[in-house]
Every structure is written in C-alpha cells, then in structure tokens.
C-alpha cells in the first residue's frame, strides 16, 4: 500500500483506529480490576478488526476482509470468552500487589510511548515517510510492545500476564496491518491460530497453578532461584 498517496479520509480513519487501540492499552495499564482489563482487550481487538477492514477497503487488499472477520471472532469474542472463564474460576477479581500504582504505571506508559514515537520518527525520517500513517503505525506497534512488557513486569496475577502477552501480539498485528498489509494471508491466519493455542495452554497452566501451587499470583512463584 503506497502510504504516501493515501486518501486523507483513509489516513485519518487509520490514525483514529490505531490511536484508539493504543488508548485501550493505557486503559489496561490504568486499571486494577481483571474484568476491566478483559473489556479493554476485547474493545482493542474489535478496533483492530475494524482497522483490517478499513485497510482492505481503502488499500484494495480484499483478503484482509477475511482477516478482519476472523480477528473480530477470535480476538474479539473467543479469546475474551476463554479468559472470562479463567477469571470466574479464580477467586481474585483484582490485582492485589502491583509493583507500581496504576497512576505511576500510566506515567511510565506515556514515557514509553514517547520513546516509541522518537524511534518511529527517526526511522520515518530515514525513509522519507514522516507525516504519514506508517510512522503512526510503527509508533503504536512499538508502544504496545513496550507497554506489554511493562505490564508483564509490574503485574503479578496470572491473568494479567496472559493479557500482557496478548497486548504484545495485538500491537504486532496492528502494526502489520498498516505497514505490511500485503503480508501473506497464511501467516496472519496461523498467528491467530497460534494465539488461540497460547491462551488455551496458559489457561490449563492456570488451572494447574490453582490445583498444585494454590496461588495464581506469580509473586509466590519464588522457589526456583540460583
């Protein structure tokens, strides 16, 4: 997709959807209730499905309609449903021991997003792409990657860690839709399938954690050191 010659309407729509997805990552960062994380993740996935459809329409990549539908179904419905089942099984409704207060996490998240913008801007300047939606896509992709890692680092509840992994993946997927919409369809399909397997595997492991360790807070997983 020649991002430089994009219809202004399409460019603003892409930007809106990408920024709204990033906003959802911040909602997750600023909340301590597990159900809120889950909702934010579901909304983020729908936004990304919308983005796929928009890219398909304006960029002329008709196979992305398929990706949009499957993204909406798998990321937007199946994964949140599976995670909701895990939440119901758990006896915890919220993060009990964050390493950082949500407010502090939001500040760090903002710094991280700025860093991502600097990197994207630098690369955009080298490729003469500054001011296009590609730089924004790269920014959102890198920010969501870094915010995912931040969530992994400061959240201890097993479900938060699964969601952090999913945010990493959502970021990559979103970036790929904007930057390389021509990527072979097979790769996108298999990555979606892979996500499903990840969540099912981690769901089973959460059950084992409950049954054999008696906790789902990774703070208590401290036996193996040295």
């Amino acid at each position, binding site marked *: *997709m020649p991002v430089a010659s994009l219809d202004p309407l399409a460019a603003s729509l892409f930007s809106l959807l990408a920024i709204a997805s990033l906003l959802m990552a911040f909602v997750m960062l600023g909340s301590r209730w597990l159900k809120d994380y889950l909702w934010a993740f579901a909304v983020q996935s729908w936004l990304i499905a919308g983005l796929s459809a928009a890219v398909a329409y304006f960029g002329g990549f008709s196979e992305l309609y398929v990706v949009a539908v499957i993204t909406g179904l798998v990321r937007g419905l199946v994964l949140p449903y599976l995670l909701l089942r895990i939440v119901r099984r758990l006896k915890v409704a919220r993060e009990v021991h964050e390493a950082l207060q949500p407010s502090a996490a939001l500040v760090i998240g903002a710094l991280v997003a700025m860093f991502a913008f600097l*990197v994207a801007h*630098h*690369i955009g300047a*080298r*490729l003469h792409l500054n001011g296009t939606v590609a730089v924004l896509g790269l920014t959102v*992709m890198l920010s969501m*990657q870094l915010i*995912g*890692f931040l969530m*992994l680092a400061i959240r201890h509840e*097993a479900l938060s*860690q699964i969601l*952090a*992994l999913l945010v*990493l*993946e959502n970021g*990559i997927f979103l*970036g*790929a839709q904007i*930057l*390389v*919409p*021509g*990527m*072979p369809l*097979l*790769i996108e399909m*298999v*990555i979606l399938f*892979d996500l499903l*397997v*990840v969540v099912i*595997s*981690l769901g*089973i*492991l959460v059950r*084992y*954690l409950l049954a*054999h*360790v008696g906790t789902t807070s*990774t703070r208590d*997983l401290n*036996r*193996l050191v*040295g």
Partner: protein
Amino acid sequence: MASTLLVALFLAPLVAVLAIAATRDARAAEGLNLLASVLACAAALPLPWLSLHRTGPFWGGYVLLDPLGAWVLLCTALVYLLASIYAIGYMRLLGEDRRLHRFYALFAGFALTMLAAPVMNNVGVYWITIELTTLISAFLVGFERGRDSIEAAWKYTVIVSAGISLALLGTIVFYWAGSHVLGPSYEMTWAALRGAAPKLDGGLATLAFLLVLIGYGTKVGLAPMHTWLPDAHSEGPAPVSAMLSGALLNTAMLGIVRFIPVAEAARLGGLPRGALILLGVASLLVAALFIVRQEGVKRLMAYSSVEHMGVLALGFGFGGPLGVAGALYHMVNHSLNKSLMFFGAGLVMRGYGTKSMGAIRAVLRYQPTAGALWLGGAVAITGAPPFALFLSEVTILRAGWSGGRGWAVVAMALLLIVVFIGFMNHVRQMYFGDAGLPGPAPARLSAWCLVPMWLALAPVLVLGLWWPEGLWHYFAAVATQLGGGAP
C-alpha cells in the same frame, strides 16, 4: 528421494501422536513413540548428504532442505531417538502409568515441531513452529505436576512467549523494509529477504536484526535472556530435559544463524556478528558464575547448556569456514553429550531421591555402569580431551584468533577453564567425596536406561579421536551458504 524422506520424517511422529491418542495405553505408547523416533532418525541420517545435491524447495515452496537445516535436523533426530529409548526405562520409574500415554503423545508432538522448524522456508512459519515447541514442551516440563515443575512451566511459557514476540516483531520489520524493495506483497522466505537485503535501509535493518537476535536469543537461552532455562531444564523429567537441551536450543539458534547473512548483506558491518559474540561471552560468563556455586544437579547441567550455547554463538559469530565448522561440530557433540548428562542426572536423582548435589556421594559404588558413563560424559562436557567437544572448542578458538577477535578468544578460553574447574569440583565431590552419608542400595538399572548412555558416549569419543574428512567438506558447504566472517 529427499522429499520422500521428509514426508517420512514428519509422518512418523504425527502418526505416533494420533495412534497414541487413539490407544491411550502406556505400553503401546512407549512402543509407538520409539518406532516413530527410529523411523525419524533413519530418515534424517541421509538428509545432510542429500541436501548437498538437491535442496528443493518442496511442497509449494514451504519446505527447504539446505545443508545447515539438514544438520540441525540430524542433531534433533538423534536426540529424539536417544531420549525415546531412555524414556521407556525412566518414565516407568515415576509410577504414572495412568497418564503416561499423554506424556508420549506430547513427546512425539514436541519432536514433530522441532523436526519441522529447521526445514521451514517461510520465516513466519518458522517462527510459529518455534512458538509451538514452547507450548508443547511447557506441558512436558510440568508433567510431574509438582509445585516446582508447574512454576517452571509457567515461567518458561510466559518468558519465552514474550521474548519470542520480539522475533516476530523483527521479522515483520524486515518484511516491511523489504517491501520498499520488492513491492508490497512477496513471499516471506529466507531467500527473498536475503535477495532484498542489499537495498534495505540500514537503520531499519539494524532495528529488525537486534529484535530478532533478542527474540530467538531468549529461546536459545543466551544470557541475559536465559532466566527461564535453568528452571525448565531442571524441573522436567530427564528425557524432556535432554530434548530441550540437546535439540530445542539448536533449532532456535538456527533462526539467528539464518538471519546473519541477511543482516550482513544489508551492509550492517560488524554489528550482527559483534552482537552475537557479545551475547556468547555474556552466556559463558553467567554460566561460569552459576556453575561454580551450583547446588542442584540438573541445574548444573542446565547452566552447562547456557555455556555451550554461548560457545555456539561464538562459533557462528566468528564465522568463516573454521568458525562454522567448529560450531556445527560442537552442535552435534553437545547434543549427544548433554543428552547423556541429563540421562545420568535423572538416574542419580531417582536413585538418591534428591536433586541436591550435597546429598549425592560415591556414585560409582551405587550405580557402577551408569556412574562410569556419566563420569565419562562429565569429562567430555567440560571440553577435556580426548572427547569431541575439545576438538570443536579448539577449532572455534582458532577461528576467533585468525579472525582478529583476540579479546573474545581470551575471554572464552578463561571462562571455559573456570567452568572446567567448577564443574569438575562438583563431580569430584559426587564421586569421591567423603561417603559418610548412607546411600541407597545399589540399583539395578534397566537396559532401556543404559543403552542410550552408551550410544551417546561412544560417538563423542570416536569423533574426538577422528574428525571425518567428509565432514570438513560438508561444513565448508554450509560456510559458503552463510558467507562472510573470518577467513
């Protein structure tokens, strides 16, 4: 011919998984998995030779058999065979016959993903096979359902999945960079990336390569991304540890090695190899520190894997015919030797009922044959002559020296000596320490456990005394394929 063998290679474990799932019987599962491993190994043996002549791609361009991939495939198949024989003896000791068919189904599935990864021609599909190896092996690590093994399985899955997502990000950035050269839509193959590489933007290629290096480096267990490795490798059952250490790490290392020529063709200068060498030295350093002060017997072996992955990283980092030859020779030697070490560690752990080396004394008196083989393996794994790891490590040192990487060579040599002293000190205490503790009664071990130990040690000794001439030609072919590096 080659494509028929590849079909056999994939079908054998796949059919085994399905048949085991259908029968749900422990004894049948053992036999089916063993049969699959024998077939897979038989199919993998001629592949390196065939890969020199006709390399595909097969099956719509998704499968590629090149000398590098065929070599990794051979190492994987060998470890799969050894671990499958050993598993029959070892897993019966656990007394989990009711769940045993699940273990073997996962085991064969794990082997299938590892055998698929080295021949994937599509960079994205390769990433997915590596991710699948993590998910399947996590359940093997947690198979014993103890508190520690579940903890290890959880940490393993989360850390490696997060780390490897960086590799996917790097792959996408590479593809994006390539789309400025090849147009918006093209096949995501290694060859396409390499073809586009000379015209890639330098900054973008640097970013992409570093992401890929850190991503796959996490899976390889290169320091400082190695934190999951000692847990996962020490808490799984011994045959699983052998597969993780001897086979899985190599298949992930392959990803890094394949990206180096792409990065070099993108004119990144010394950065790709320099970064890999740096991670290699860091791994050796971390391994040396933790080996000296180690208390758990399987954790000792796990840190030894970090060490040897560091050696491999140095070998591929130095590059050139000598560096690549040393690294590939080291790969097969380490695969065989580390399998032996985990087999022995598993038996000792079962015999003494502890993981702590402090409680393991006078091994030779209680397990004469297995103890002697394990001792031989310990001498070999620390890189002492006359075993093969000595030859491959010296070759890598020579490659670094002639390539003008003096500081890395000095660091590697010093750290290898530290590892040797630290490792051997633990072995000395386990074998010859004051036997004040009442040990268990001498165990009669089943041949299923002992035969694979013989099968692993014998080639390590033979390859240490005789480096076949044909292998030099083979390694030279791989070095040409990879290009660059020291003369």
